[in-house]
């Protein structure tokens, strides 16, 4: 009986631990944008609310969790409803602390944008997207 209770407590504790387990705590500031896929979860800053129409910015990407060996290889932005992307080709670089920096970003219209991030490892790749509502 006592063992059963102990087991139950242990189970609940484990379940609680597991539900927190995705290493989001490693992603720092919660105000950024989460970009989620099957093989990776990324955290982007600054958050969409801090972006301004027509103002250049650099986006920092952090891998929160990912399959082994996963790397970010490309980042871009597009307006799906308008059928166009940015007029600028951002440059992606890997920082010393393991994060990625996309420089040369510029969203030239207010409205619904989408960040498009390609991730790849030696044996798999995925295109992740996240909606960005750019306010006037």
């Amino acid at each position: 009986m006592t063992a059963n209770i102990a087991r139950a407590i242990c189970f609940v504790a484990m379940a609680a631990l597991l539900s927190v387990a995705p290493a989001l705590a490693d992603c720092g500031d919660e105000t950024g944008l989460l970009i989620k896929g099957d093989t990776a979860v990324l955290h982007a800053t600054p958050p969409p609310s801090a972006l301004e129409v027509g103002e250049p910015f650099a986006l920092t990407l952090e891998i929160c969790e990912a399959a082994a060996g996963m790397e970010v290889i490309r980042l871009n932005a597009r307006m799906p409803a308008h059928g166009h992307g940015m007029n600028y080709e951002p440059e992606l670089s890997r920082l010393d602390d393991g994060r990625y920096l996309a420089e040369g970003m510029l969203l030239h219209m207010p409205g619904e944008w989408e960040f498009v991030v390609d991730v790849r490892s030696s044996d798999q790749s995925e295109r992740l997207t996240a909606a960005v509502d750019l306010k006037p």
Partner: protein
Amino acid sequence: MTGRAASIALLICVASSSFFARTAAHANDRFTSDERAMISANGPWPLNPTPDPSNRFSGDQTAIAFGKDLFSDPRLSRDENLSCTSCHVPELGFTDGLERSTGIGEVDRNAPAIANLANFRWFGWDGRSDTLWGQSIHPILNDLEMAATAADIAAQMAGQEDLAARYEQATQTNPADETPEAILVNTGKILAAYQETLRTPRTRFDDYRDALVTGATAGQVAYPDAAKRGLKIFTGKGKCSICHFGPLFTNGEFHSIGIKHFAAADRVDTGRYGGLKAFRESKLNRLGPHSDEDQALAAKAPSAYAAFLHSNWGAYRVPSLRNVGATAPYMHDGSLATLEDVVDHYSDMNMDRLHSDGETLLRPLDLSAQERADIVAFLHTLTAAPVASAAGD
């Protein structure tokens, strides 16, 4: 009360009640919250112009005064008969009123208005330059415009007593000691320093926009109803303000809007495609040997990341709409004579002329005659007095 007095009283009642009804409507002026956000983003005005880091004469009063005189000096042209003001006439909003401008020959483009340039990212209809000074050198050298050479400009600056003295005063160098290329670049920078001071004043729209943002009723009532209806279409179903965005009424970028691509029967104007190519080949850029900007910073400027895209073909820089009532005719080739024609163009958009993979933002608006007139009424509230130099005389 006589019948006549009663009918006058009735008239006053009817008139005043409709006045009050209108006043009440002004309180929130029938805009959705998205439309209000767009209108708010069209201000405040004026903008604070930032000095051009690539031009060491930016904001320099000696250079500005010299630049103002050079702007109308025909000695900058090969035949000494044309100046910047030949096509950028101050009394015509710094345009020339022609469909396509004529220097030594006729060019394919309409002379763009020169105002508020200190806040631009790209210059020219095709964005061939990311510096105002680089753009200012282009018409001096172009065979169809002023058709001079760097050697011509150097000969004038060094050989004409008045020019040599003012050049030395502005640049602290004697033109006789400089290369023709250096003199040409400095001439462009001095012309740019002057042009940066040309700004459009506040307009009826700005007063209304501020009143809408602050909730000041009097300012909202003062704006004409037709202009309000036009503004609602402009920011709402017309989607005009998506590209004519912000205080300058332009997002500063490039779009194809279905104007014919042929500059002549045998010649296509490639627009932004050719502009970006010319930009990449030019030395007169922020990131370049003649720029005064910290090159590490210039390497991070948006222009350093400009992308070659299929959509560059036949795209032109979205013009600012400030002072638009004074700068007819319209479009890169001046093919639309009036603002009414421009509104008709968007209302009756010819989809065949847009690239098949072009933006889906443009669709015929099918506006009524009243709606068209309302948009034009709104556009006229973006024009106040003639363009003035903030530097004064």
